[in-house]
């Protein structure tokens, strides 16, 4: 997973905002309750904690954890903070589409 995505910061974020995002996430996902997520957050922070490492990642990263485009969507969705259901009309439409297909 892209560390910028994990921390929820942009490529042009500064040290302070990266640190802030990291601390917010660590508080939200303490290691005792979310060990995997915590590791992901700390790994991402290690890769982005200073300007040089952010630039290095931006310039020279060759990795992608995905094998196909759809995996990007799945990962993006599962990493998102919280999930909100669609409104009732959308649920109706969705179920009816499933019925007809």
């Amino acid at each position, binding site marked *: 997973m892209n560390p910028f995505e994990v921390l929820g910061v942009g490529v042009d974020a500064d040290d302070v905002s990266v640190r802030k995002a990291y601390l917010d996430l660590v508080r939200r996902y303490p290691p005792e309750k979310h060990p995997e997520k915590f590791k992901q957050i700390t790994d991402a922070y290690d890769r982005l904690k200073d300007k040089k490492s952010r630039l290095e990642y931006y310039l020279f990263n*060759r990795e*992608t954890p*995905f094998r*196909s485009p759809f995996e990007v969507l799945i990962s*993006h969705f599962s990493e998102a903070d919280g999930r*909100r259901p669609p409104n009732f009309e959308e*649920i109706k439409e969705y179920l009816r589409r499933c*019925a007809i297909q």
Partner: protein
Amino acid sequence: MGKRKKRKRQKGPNKTAPIEVLEKKASDALQARKYRQARDYLKELCKRDREKYLPELIAAHEGLALQMINEGRFSDAKQVVDHLTDLGATGKKGWLEFIVSFKQGDFVKAACAALRLLEEDDNITESGEKLLMYDSLVLSFEALDIAKTPKQFSIIREANQVQAALKLVSEEKYEEAMACLRAVSLSSPFSHWKLFVKGLIAFYKMEEQKAQKAFSKLPDESIPAKAAEPYMLLLGSREGLKKYQKRADVLGLACWVAARKDLESVLPRAEYLWRVGRFRDSYAHVRRNIEGFPSEDQGIIQGLSDFYLNAVFQMKERDADRYIDFLDKMVARGKTDGAEKLMILRTIGLWLEDVGADDPMVLGVWKEFLRWHREVHGENRDLQALVCVHLGDLFSREVIRHPPFFPFSGGATSRRPVVHNERLAQYCYDTCLEIDPTNKQAHFSLLALYEKTGQKSKINKKLDEIIELFPEDKDTLYKAGLRCVDRKAFIKGMKYLEWAAKLDLLDMRVREALIVCCIKAALEYAKRSKVEQYRALLSKALEYGESDSDDFNLGHAYLYARWATFELLNNNVTDAEQLLDKASELGRHEPRFLYFKFLVGRLYQVPSKYMSSIEKRVKKEFSGRASPEKAIAFADVISYFQRTSRTIPKWFKEEQRRVNRYIRKTAKGEFSQAQARVFVEYALQNTDEDLAWSYINKALEQNPDDPYFLFVRFQLEVGSFYGFVDEEELDELKRILSLAQKQRDQELISRIRKTIEEIEKMGSVRDIFDNHDEELDEEEEDLDEAVDIFVENLLREANKKRPGRQRKKRNSPSSATQLNLFD
């Protein structure tokens, strides 16, 4: 002339055909599910005997209607169903009316039909049909006022509860939704809807396992089961995708569930193209259909961009070539702009580095990247400097030498690494320092380049420059200190090293270098009888040494012994004795310490009158029955002196022989495998193969599967003739490797691996020569390379052998030279 299409006339039943023929044809058609054909024959038969053939005609109509529904021809199906009414059919007619309305999306009408059918109940045999009818009642999402019987009232009430629960889920009122579902019992025909809603609640509450459990229990043919598939896909991650990756409908709905309706029509197709290996088409499809792709901004589009531009590094060579070519053409044709061009240039640059493209080409792509980055994002000096250092490091990488094809052709090759492209590396570092004169990484990389290429004066100049710029950098101070020691500028060197040691007192490497510097300087003063000076220096050495260490440089006992020697050089016998007493109190390993004292005295040329008593004691230690412990101590001491003396006097060679004799004598007695290993290493360092063999054979008698001795035996037998190692010998080496792996002997494992690698490399070069006649055309380039290596090696060897052209030996500031304490 265009071809005229012949229209095939549909053959109807022969009106004059006998009944038996028509019956046979109708029956065959029914069996083959050719309902339209069967209907035509049966129509004809009905004209002759309506009563007899009407049930079969109705069955043909029903079959035809179902077929049409399945094909999505709902209006045609509706006509057939209407015709069933004319025929007076009851049976499946109700069900067909329901399914036509259902499939047409008229859920209210379908619900009404379902309610009627469920009231009758008798005609519904399939459980799937029943489920669909109940589902239609939920999907109608209308207050149905058509209930007439208590049963119908009860069915509608439960359907409304499910609808209400779904509404509450959409409003994130999960507790209330659960309460609403309590009215739906487990035995209710809507119990699967209850499960579905529970799954939804768990999904949106991020209780993934709970959601998966609920969804997985849904009956296969139900609508909730279909509706749960996209959720399961999103929950199942990679495994989920594996299950549904061929179902474009599920992928599309998953985009919807993931709140990315905009990707619904793009991503399933992109996924399919990617999965079948049409990577370029997949990229083009996404690029064409997703606005803003590729993007550097945060979000899923950026995730997709990252994927599409980094995936090339995981592709097979041929696919990667084509993909890069495709990206390159887009840039070359001016089809890209902004972030896309930037991202593509970055990918091409990295890819060219990986495939070892020409240096100017790599440099050119990165220059274009920097130029374009400036246009898109404005000036970014940090980024420019980083790219320059990156390229400098790339060009200054050490080139791996191929082992000589004829290893017997000459002596050892130069140990200095070969730099890939010194000129371009220097250019890149200089450019970086122009952009950012205080770029630490560039300064250090440039220093490393000078060290690799052995440019002594540039090294010294750069070190001074770095110290001025970064006075608190321990490594720089350490390196500068070593350089000064190498130039015999001891006082300056001591200043740098002491400074470095104060920055990190735990770094033993720095402390040892400082002590060595003190000893060297003290020796100079001792030779000139400057007593106060050398005493001060040795006190400083003690300050940075370790009282209980057995290290010959760091240990206080050994420092006292040296100091005593310097005192003897100046005839200060009493001081020397006091120092030796202190040393003796600390010297825990008597024969080791005694032999060190003796050799130090002799090497520093202490007058013989002070050496006679110690000489006798040493002689006594060497006489009598040999013990492996003593032998290890002597080997340790003599090896230290060999390592740290640049020139070896004649008498020292006699000492080496004395130690060798003692170790050989030890081989006749008992010793452990670990002790034997020390002796073998010692023997190999001294190129005394006989001595090594005496231990190897005996150690292998004790343990025939000892990987260390097997490996050493292999090395001694093969020598450096790696080009002639056959498959069997290579297999044996691999067996030894597996033995070493079992013992987890990391050092030995890496040595064996390195040897295997060299043998295999040698084998590949030999193969090229062996096969060159057959594959000359295809392998021309490889062969040229092999010949180049061969000629290069020969020339190198020839140059070495020409005395007139021999280059003056340069000493790099390695630990070996800086530890040179006796010249």
